[in-house]
């Protein structure tokens, strides 16, 4: 095999891979936008039900986001001929739910209010950071850094359910902006 053919084959494979990554990033913007919408709904909900009873609502919203995203993916596949993978989102949703619940419970158990109020959010930001690495998305990586900074600032200045509601609203705003950049 001559080196020029090898180089050409590699360049073509890399171009195809880049195209797939770009399509995956745009597709992942769908569940992320839905997640942001769910967080907007959960922000006032936490003031009504209390932060320690929020887990079932979070679980239900993640389930709803997954179901809607799956339907949207199928519809998009019907028109574009390419069906993105939903498995990275499912992994992130599961890790965020399980890790968030553990952080919240740990905070209550050991009397650490900052862990109870900010821990689940930092876990969410970490899970999204893993997703950003998987998708090679700088926008999402920057968004998760902003989210972590928000949690630090909120837990240092606020406490109780308002701290959780503020983080939910702020995270939603950051995620909306991030998913907008990813879909371009």
């Amino acid at each position, binding site marked *: *095999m001559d*080196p020029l053919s*090898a*180089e*050409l*084959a*590699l360049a*073509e*494979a*890399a171009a*195809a*891979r880049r*195209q*797939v*990554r770009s*399509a*995956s990033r745009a597709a992942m913007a769908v569940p992320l936008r839905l997640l942001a919408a769910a967080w907007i709904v959960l922000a006032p909900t936490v003031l009504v039900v209390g932060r320690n009873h929020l887990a079932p609502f979070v679980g239900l919203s993640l389930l709803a986001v997954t179901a809607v995203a799956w339907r949207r*993916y199928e519809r998009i*596949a*019907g028109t*574009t*001929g*390419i*069906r*993105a*993978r*939903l498995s990275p989102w499912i992994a992130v949703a599961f890790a965020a739910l399980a890790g968030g619940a553990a952080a919240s419970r740990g905070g209550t158990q050991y009397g650490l209010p900052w862990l109870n109020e900010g821990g689940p959010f930092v876990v969410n930001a970490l899970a999204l950071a893993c997703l950003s690495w998987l998708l090679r998305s700088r926008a999402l990586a920057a968004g998760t850094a902003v989210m972590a900074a928000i949690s630090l600032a909120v837990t240092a200045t606020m406490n109780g359910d308002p701290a959780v509601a503020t983080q939910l609203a702020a995270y939603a705003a950051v995620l909306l902006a991030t998913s907008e950049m990813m879909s371009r």
Partner: protein
Amino acid sequence: MSEHPIHDLDDDVHQRVRLGILASLHGVAKADFTHLKTTLGVTDGNLGRHLQALEAAGLISQNKTASKGRPRTWVKITSKGRHALRAEVRALQQLLGALDEPVPQDPHQQDQKAARA
């Protein structure tokens, strides 16, 4: 047995269009025949033949569906296909990497140069 990187190239994957098909399928759940045809800029017959070869090697799977009365062929990469693609890319990179290494001098020529000096 030579350890040259060409021996790591897989004959089922190595062809340009086949490498393009696998690279296009890697990272997505599935893609349809028309999408692959447009992306790779090949004819129906050409793509069909390469897909058959890849399917026979167990590197992809094809599934025919009908939507709105129109038949549609969906193509998926298998786990064997993913491994084969990674191995092929690695082999190609090694092959190109070998070009950057300094070429060893022929000891015969070195002796002649030394004798002339």
